C-alpha cells in the first residue's frame, strides 16, 4: 500500500511540475486585477479616480482592472521578502534601485516585451539612454518614466541683482574652452564674491557648496556609479583610454577644497554650514547655486545663459550654462539614474497582463493618452468624470500657441493646507508618465523630445565607456558601503571648507582612510571591467 501511495504522489508531483512549466500565453480572456504599488504617498481621491479609470480601461484592455495602493520603501522590501503578490510597482530614487535589482525583486522584461509590448519596444529604441539606465547585462528590469529632465549639464546660477559683479564672459569662455573645471574658474567666482563683499551687499544666507562641488568641480568627469554611494568613481570623459579613479582625490577636487577652506575662513561660507539644510536655497536670492540638470521647461537655443523670470516678466536670476555642445558627452550608464520607473516584481501573479497594461499606456493613441491623463492629473473640470463624481482636479486652458496649461482647482502658486488641489496634490505624474505621451501641463517641447531621441544618441560625443554599467552593487556591496561611510564622514568637511586652514591634514586623513577601506581594490576591479568592456565595444 505504502509503495502505491508513494508512486501516486510521485506521479502527481511530476504532472504538477510539468503543468506549471507550460507557459500559457495570456490571451486576455481571464478577468484579472492588477495590484499596483504606485509610490509612497497616499493620493487623495485615489478611489474614485481608480474607479473611473477602471471603467475606461475596460474598453481598451478587456477584463482588466487595477487596484492601486501605496507602500513605504521599507514596507515594500518586507512585502517582497514575504513574497506578497504585487503586479506592478513604482521604483526609483527613494528606493535603492540597483540593490533591488541585485536582490532579484524584478522580473527581466525582455521576453515579455517581445511578446506583448510593441509600443514599449518602440519607446525603448527611441529613448535608449533612459532604458539603458534600467538595463543590466542586457536584461531590462524596469520601464523608465518621463522626468522633466533633459540632460545633465552644469550651471551656475546667481540672482539678477548681482549679475554685474560677475565676469560672466570670462567664466563662460574659461568653461567652454576647457571641458574640466580649471582653477581660473574658481578665481573668477572668488572675485565675484569679493566684489559683492566690497560693495557691501554680500549675504551668505542659504549658500551651500555641496551642489557647487558636485556639479561644477566634477565637470568633465563621467561617473560610473551614483555619486551618493561608494567612492565617487569616475573617469575623464574625453580620455582615449580612460582610467577610473575616485573623484575625491583628483586635482580638481583638491583645488576646490582649497577654495572652500579659503571661503570658510573669509566668512563667505556660513559658519553653520555643517548643520544647515540645503532646501532653503533659491536662485533669486542665494548668492550662488548650482546643479546638473536641465529641465525642458526653460531650455532655449543659446548655450550661454538662460534666464529665470518672475511674475512680472522681469529677470530674477541668471543661469550660466557651463558646458557647451562640444563639452557635453554621453557616457556610462548609472543604473537608476533616470530616477523613476515601473517594474514588475517577481511575485507578480499576472506579469503578462501587467506588461500589456504598461504597453497600453505607452501606445500614444488618443484613448490611451486619455487614460494616462486621468492617472496623472485626475479629472478635468469639463469631463464626464467631474460630472459623475462631483469633483475635479484641474482645468485646461488652451494657450495661443496651441499648448495647454493645466490649472489645479483653486489653483494658487502657493497652496496651503486649505487648498485641496494645488497643482501637485493629485499628481501621479512621475508614477508613470511614459515618454511618448504629451505632458499637458506645459506641452512637451519638441526641442526636448528631439534632444532625447536624436541629439543625445546620435550627436553628442560618446565616451569610450558609453553605456558601461559596472554594477558593483552585485558583488561588492559591503566594500562600497565602507567607502560610502568614509566619504560620508570626510567629504563634506572638505567641500564645506569647515576645517579652515587644517584642511590639508583632514585630506591626508581622508586619503588614508580611503585606502584602509579598500579603494584600491575596488578601483582595480572596476578598471578590469572597464578594460574588458572597451575591448568588446
Amino acid at each position, binding site marked *: 500500500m505504502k509503495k502505491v501511495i508513494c508512486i501516486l504522489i510521485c506521479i502527481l508531483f511530476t504532472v504538477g511540475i510539468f503543468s506549471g512549466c507550460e507557459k500559457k500565453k495570456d490571451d486576455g480572456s481571464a478577468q484579472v486585477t492588477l495590484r499596483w504599488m504606485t509610490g*509612497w*504617498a*497616499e493620493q*487623495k481621491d485615489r478611489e474614485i479616480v481608480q474607479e473611473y479609470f477602471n471603467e475606461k480601461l475596460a474598453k481598451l484592455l478587456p477584463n482588466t482592472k487595477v487596484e492601486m*495602493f501605496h*507602500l*513605504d520603501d*521599507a*514596507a515594500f522590501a*518586507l512585502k517582497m*521578502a*514575504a513574497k*506578497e503578490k504585487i503586479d506592478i510597482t513604482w521604483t526609483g530614487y527613494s528606493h535603492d534601485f540597483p540593490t533591488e535589482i541585485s536582490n532579484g525583486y524584478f522580473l527581466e522584461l525582455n521576453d515579455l516585451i517581445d511578446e506583448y509590448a510593441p509600443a514599449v519596444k518602440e519607446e525603448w529604441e527611441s529613448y535608449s539612454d533612459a532604458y539603458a539606465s534600467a538595463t543590466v547585462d542586457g536584461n531590462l528590469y524596469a520601464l523608465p518614466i518621463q*522626468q*522633466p529632465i533633459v540632460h545633465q549639464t552644469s550651471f551656475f546660477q546667481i540672482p539678477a541683482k548681482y549679475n554685474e559683479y560677475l565676469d560672466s564672459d570670462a567664466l563662460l569662455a574659461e568653461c567652454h574652452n576647457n571641458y574640466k573645471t580649471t582653477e581660473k574658474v574658481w578665481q573668477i567666482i572668488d572675485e565675484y564674491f569679493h566684489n559683492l563683499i566690497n560693495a557691501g551687499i554680500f549675504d551668505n544666507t542659504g549658500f551651500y557648496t555641496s551642489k557647487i562641488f558636485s556639479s561644477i568641480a566634477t565637470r568633465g568627469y563621467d561617473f560610473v556609479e551614483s555619486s551618493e554611494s561608494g567612492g565617487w568613481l569616475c573617469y575623464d570623459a574625453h580620455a582615449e583610454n580612460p582610467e577610473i579613479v575616485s573623484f575625491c582625490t583628483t586635482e580638481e577636487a583638491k583645488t576646490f577644497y582649497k577654495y572652500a577652506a579659503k571661503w570658510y575662513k573669509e566668512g563667505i561660507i556660513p559658519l553653520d554650514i555643517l548643520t544647515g539644510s540645503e*532646501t*532653503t536655497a*533659491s536662485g533669486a536670492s542665494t548668492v550662488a547655486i548650482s546643479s546638473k540638470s536641465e*529641465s525642458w*521647461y*526653460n531650455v532655449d537655443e543659446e548655450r550661454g545663459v538662460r534666464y529665470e523670470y518672475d511674475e512680472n516678466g522681469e529677470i530674477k536670476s541668471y543661469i550660466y550654462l557651463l558646458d557647451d555642445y562640444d563639452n557635453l558627452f554621453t557616457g556610462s550608464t548609472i543604473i537608476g539614474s533616470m530616477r523613476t520607473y515601473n517594474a514588475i516584481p517577481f511575485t507578480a501573479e499576472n506579469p503578462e497582463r501587467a506588461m500589456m497594461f504598461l504597453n497600453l499606456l505607452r501606445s500614444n493613441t488618443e484613448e490611451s493618452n486619455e487614460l494616462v491623463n486621468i492617472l496623472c492629473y485626475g479629472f478635468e473640470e469639463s469631463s464626464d468624470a467631474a460630472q459623475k463624481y462631483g469633483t475635479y482636479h484641474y482645468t485646461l486652458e488652451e494657450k495661443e500657441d496651441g499648448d495647454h496649461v493645466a490649472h489645479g482647482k483653486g489653483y494658487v*502658486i*502657493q*497652496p*496651503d*493646507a*486649505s487648498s485641496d488641489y*494645488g*497643482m*501637485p*496634490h493629485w*499628481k501621479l*505624474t*512621475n508614477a508613470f508618465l511614459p515618454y511618448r505621451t504629451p505632458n499637458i*501641463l506645459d506641452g512637451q517641447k519638441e526641442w526636448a523630445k528631439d534632444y532625447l531621441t536624436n541629439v543625445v544618441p546620435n550627436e553628442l560625443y560618446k565616451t569610450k565607456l558609453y553605456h558601461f554599467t559596472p554594477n558593483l552593487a552585485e558583488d561588492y556591496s559591503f566594500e562600497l558601503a565602507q567607502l560610502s561611510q568614509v566619504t560620508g564622514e570626510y567629504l563634506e568637511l572638505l567641500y564645506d571648507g569647515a576645517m579652515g586652514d587644517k584642511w590639508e591634514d583632514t585630506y591626508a586623513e581622508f586619503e588614508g582612510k580611503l585606502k584602509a577601506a579598500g579603494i584600491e581594490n575596488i578601483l582595480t576591479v572596476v578598471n578590469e571591467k572597464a578594460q574588458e568592456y572597451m575591448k568588446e565595444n
Partner: protein
Amino acid sequence: MKKIKFPRVMLHTVFIILCVIFIIPMFIAVMISFSTESDIITYGYSIIPRNFSLEAYKIIIQDSASLLKAYGITILSATVSPFLSLIFNGTIAYSISRPEFKARKIVTIYILITMLFGGGLIPSYILNTQVYGLGNTIWVHLILGLVSGSNIILFRVSFSQIPKSLIESADIDGANQAQILLHIIIPMSKPIVSMIFFTGFIGGWNSYATSMYYISDKNLYQLQYYLKNVISNSEFIRQSFAEFGLKGGEDIPFQTLKFAICVASSLPILMMFPYIQKFFSKGIAAGSLKE
C-alpha cells in the same frame, strides 16, 4: 520650626528649577508649531513666532474623518493591549517569583533568551502574515508585543518585595495561587502595575511600525502612522514642486508640521498621566501587615 522648614523650601526650589528645565523645550516646541513655515526658513527657529499661524495644525486636521478613525484605533489598541499584557506578563512573573516553583530558573532563562535574540523582521513578518493570518486586521495591533521579558522582570521584582508572611497566611487559609495573585499580589503592586500599564499605553500610542508593515486598510491605521503619512505627503508635495521648478513648495508646512505633530501626540498622554498618578502616592503598601 525653622530648621525643619528650610530643607523643605530648598527641595521645592530645586524641583521648580528642574521643572523649568524640563518644560521650556516643550514650550519652545509649542511656540514653533504656531509659526509659519516661511518664517522658519527665513529666520530659523525662534522662541516667539513672528507670525502666529495655525497652518501646521490645519494640515493635521485636514482629513478629520480619517484622523478620528486613527484616534479610535489607537485608543482601542493602547488600552486593550496593555491590559492583555498585564494578564500574560503578570501570571508568568508571579510563577517565577515563587520559590516553590521548581522550574523557575528554566522558565526565567526561557524568557531571557527571547529578550536577547530574535529572528528579525522578515521571519516574524512571514509567520505573522502567512501562517497566523494576522495581516491587515485589528489583531495585529492587539497581539504583537504582548509578552515582554523586561515587563515580566519588573513585575517579578515588585512581587518579591511583598512580605512573604502575607502570602503564607493566605496559603494556610487554603487560597489557590490564582486567588493569591488576584487578591493580594496585584493590589499590593499598584504602583508598578499602573506604571507598566502607562508605559504600555504610551507604547501603543506611539506605535506605527505595525501599521506600516501590516496594514493597508486605511481604516486600521494607528495615529502615529497616520501622522507620519501627513508628513510624508507634505514632503512629497514639496519635492513635486521642486521637480517642476516651481516656487512655493518650500512654504508648505514641513518643519512646523513636525513640531505640531509632536505637540499633538504628547498632549493627550500628558493629560492622561494625572489619572495614573493616583496610584503613585505614599502609604499604599503599608497597612496589610498591621492587620
